[in-house]
């Protein structure tokens, strides 16, 4: 693991992308080959299965450190990271041994299914053989939360520098379902990992329109700067799961954007294998669709949550793909062709399908002017869409996020003013800082907690709030502090749903803080009734799931 530890330390010691890329490229040229494959796997989200529970780790680490469990927990709350807390708390290693990353991970994989005594012995021996930084990384492998401050894009660039293979080609070869334990570095970078027949293409990603250059003279973001509306395709930004449907000879697969194979979760798509022309790859959105319209995202979540889908759920929540783009036609990679051509071929293909299949085009919106498009965008919520997607008709299908050709033009979020009731310290780079808050709105003379949020403020604001929380703690519940209801925040959220599970009876989608309302007091926060009113209007409102009551 020595070269892997050195790599991690080099990456961790800089915030400069160029330095990170160079360090990673050097590692991918010189590290043991099997270690390189594991590193690529880790940096593209392919983690070994969790062999040890976090609870077991805490208990074993507290024992090894010779401290009571409560003191371990206090220390963990301050470090904000379990792997790091353990690395700091353990006594110095007694038996430093060089071990490769490959051997370490294979050892971990072999732990699955072993009894507690064996797993404990393995972990304690590993700790005892590693210095503090090695222990930290070993713990990160154990707990599965592996991040190294390296995006998949940066990793691909470094791998390209190390191998001389073009970045986009590599990005494609790294896609899909490959097993780092059985894939060699040479195969992975030359032919790609896993089964080529079911391998998806890297997804093209859009940027938020707020990040686009502001049109001259404009104060608020609008698409005027994008040029004539005729050069763009406008369509709904659906609130489902982005997916890639692959129908090739010998392979039928549905991949999520997170590169998860989800074919079996959606058995209703199986007939498409018989009807789509061989060598077809479609980019689209998976939605739960009934009576000509999508159901709320929560209904889709129920489907994703189940490994096997029962007949009742299939009937209640039937899935459908709304097609956006055609990436492969008759086995030919179409990604370099302009969107206008890809879309025309896709429309022709979908039109030729027999009726009754769960695949249809995502409708294209007609707009003569941007103002016209803006009016349609305002209707998105009624269709349970999040806003519009704007795609340049002449654009290729890019690998990853390339700013300029694809924009998401989302609806303005809902907002509510609420008061902070509880605060909790954050994790990772927010360790030791109070960043996770629980908020309440008024309900008569009471305050009713209804949402948690932990993003949207600046570091300086979080630091100031942290001082305030420390000086105003009324009660401690482990890491959580109860504070007087004094600090008011404006929260934004994307959607609202009835939820019998929550005391307030509602659940918000993507709540976050937009600003700290220092000008407002607790008397001026919103009332639960205004949220209930939103709930009644919201098309997302569906009757509560009977199982939840």
């Amino acid at each position: 693991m020595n070269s892997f530890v050195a790599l991690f330390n080099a990456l961790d010691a800089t915030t400069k992308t160029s330095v990170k890329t160079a360090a990673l490229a050097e590692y991918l040229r010189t590290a043991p080959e099997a270690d390189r494959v594991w590193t690529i796997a880790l940096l593209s989200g392919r983690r070994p299965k969790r062999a040890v529970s976090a609870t077991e780790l805490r208990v074993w680490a507290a024992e090894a450190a010779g401290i009571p469990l409560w003191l371990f927990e206090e220390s963990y709350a301050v470090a904000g990271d379990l792997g790091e807390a353990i690395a700091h708390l353990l006594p110095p290693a007694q038996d430093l041994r060089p071990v490769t990353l490959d051997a370490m991970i294979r050892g971990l994989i072999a732990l699955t299914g072993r009894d507690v005594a064996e797993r404990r012995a393995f972990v304690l021996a590993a700790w005892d053989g590693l210095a503090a930084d090695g222990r930290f990384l070993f713990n990160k492998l154990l707990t599965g939360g592996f991040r190294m401050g390296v995006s998949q894009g940066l990793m691909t660039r470094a791998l390209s520098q190390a191998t001389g293979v073009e970045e986009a080609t590599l990005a494609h070869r790294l896609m899909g379902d490959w097993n780092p334990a059985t894939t060699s570095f040479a195969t992975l970078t030359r032919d790609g990992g896993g089964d080529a027949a079911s391998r998806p293409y890297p997804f093209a990603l859009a940027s938020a329109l707020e990040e686009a250059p502001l049109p001259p003279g404009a104060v608020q973001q609008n698409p005027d700067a994008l040029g004539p509306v005729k050069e763009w395709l406008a369509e709904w930004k659906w609130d489902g799961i982005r997916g890639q449907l692959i129908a090739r000879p010998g392979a039928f697969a549905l991949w999520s954007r997170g590169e998860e194979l989800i074919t079996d979760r959606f058995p209703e798509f199986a007939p498409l294998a018989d009807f789509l022309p061989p060598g077809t790859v479609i980019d689209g959105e998976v939605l739960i669709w009934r009576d000509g319209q999508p159901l709320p995202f929560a209904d889709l979540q129920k489907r994703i949550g189940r490994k096997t889908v029962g007949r009742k759920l299939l009937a209640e929540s039937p899935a459908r793909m709304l097609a956006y783009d055609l990436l492969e036609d008759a086995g030919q990679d179409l990604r370099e062709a302009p969107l206008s051509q890809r879309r025309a071929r896709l429309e022709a293909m979908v039109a030729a399908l027999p009726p009754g299949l769960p695949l249809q085009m995502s409708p294209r919106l007609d707009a003569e002017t941007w103002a016209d498009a803006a009016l349609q965008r305002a209707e998105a919520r009624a269709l349970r869409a999040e806003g519009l997607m704007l795609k340049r008709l002449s654009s290729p299908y890019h690998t990853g996020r390339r700013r300029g050709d694809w924009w998401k033009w989302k609806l303005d979020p809902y907002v509510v003013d609420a008061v902070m009731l509880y605060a909790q310290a954050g994790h990772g780079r927010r360790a030791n800082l109070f960043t996770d808050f629980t908020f309440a709105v008024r309900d008569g003379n009471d305050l009713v907690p209804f949402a948690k949020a932990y993003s949207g403020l600046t570091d300086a604001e979080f630091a100031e709030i942290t001082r305030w929380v420390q000086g105003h703690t009324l009660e401690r519940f482990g890491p959580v502090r109860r504070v007087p209801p004094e600090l008011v925040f404006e929260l934004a959220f994307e959607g609202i749903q009835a939820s019998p599970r929550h005391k307030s009876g509602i659940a918000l989608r993507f709540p976050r803080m937009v600003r700290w309302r220092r000008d407002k007091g607790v008397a001026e926060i919103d009332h639960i009734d205004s949220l209930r009113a939103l709930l009644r209007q919201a098309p997302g409102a569906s009757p509560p799931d009977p199982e939840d009551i």
Partner: protein
Amino acid sequence: MSDALLTFTNRGIYCPDGDFFIDPWRPVDRALITHGHSDHARYGHAAYLATHQALPVIRHRLGDIRAEGIAYGETRQIGAVTVSFHPAGHVPGSAQIRVERGGEVWVVSGDYKVEPDGLCEAFMPVRCHTFITECTFGLPLFRWQPQKVLAEQIAAWWAANAAEGRISILGAYGLGKAQRLMAMLPAIGPILTHGAVEDTTRILRDQGYAIPDTIRVTAGISAQTHPGALVVAPPSAMDSTWARRFGAADTAFASGWMALRGIRRRRALGTGFVISDHADWPGLNAAIAATGATRVFATHGYTAPFRRWLEEQGYQAGIVETQFGGDEAESPDTAEGAADAAVAGDGA
């Protein structure tokens, strides 16, 4: 505890029988000051008492004050109690304050560290019945490496930068830490200082502390005039226009808080050297045991868990609340905000 030797008030630690406060945070008639950091030596008291070694910096920082010096170990009768100051090893001139009345002894630690740093007066345990201890790093997460190892790490970083003609900017609190770093490093190149660091450094050097020569950064000074130099600056200056004159410099920060990766990342500082002027976990425990005290009060730091730990070790334990009411007054973000780090530099 109406006849307690020391009581805890909303102005700070108070001795009724001597009618004085120790490190008070609101104006009082008579203040005994453990050391010159801004959260201990504050403006507005009618009279100050501190060690001879601590006074010059305190006078420099607080201006025209009525202050008196006292030697380490010298006893002084104040009202019905006897007080004396003893080395705390935190920064030059820093002291623990011992208060005695009829054989009963209380000691207020102030801030302290137990490892001698070669610059300031080394910590000496003082036997007492009741010990009021800081616990800034009062969790077993915090274990410092010996100064020799840290000096090698920092020297290697500086030397590597110097070899490539690059400036090394080292962020450190301006009173104590900055001078300790200068004194412990080998002479790899010139040492440049930010004004806030230079003033304190000069005062301490004039007092006789062994601090190498430094050059104050002025308009004409840049990476070209002093290639490979070490720049010692307060944390607040590190990411400012002031620092930009040094071009593509390499930046590092020296603080006990750098032990935590989350804090290192939050401050977007590439390199963090884990070096503190406060006692680490083993240091706190050893210092407390060496006092022989049966009763211990925790203040400044992770007081709640530290008190519980002390109780489990068989001490009678309590907490002294600080000005902030909370118990983490010196967490890395609050310390930075509570005091002007550019001139004062408390904490780590």
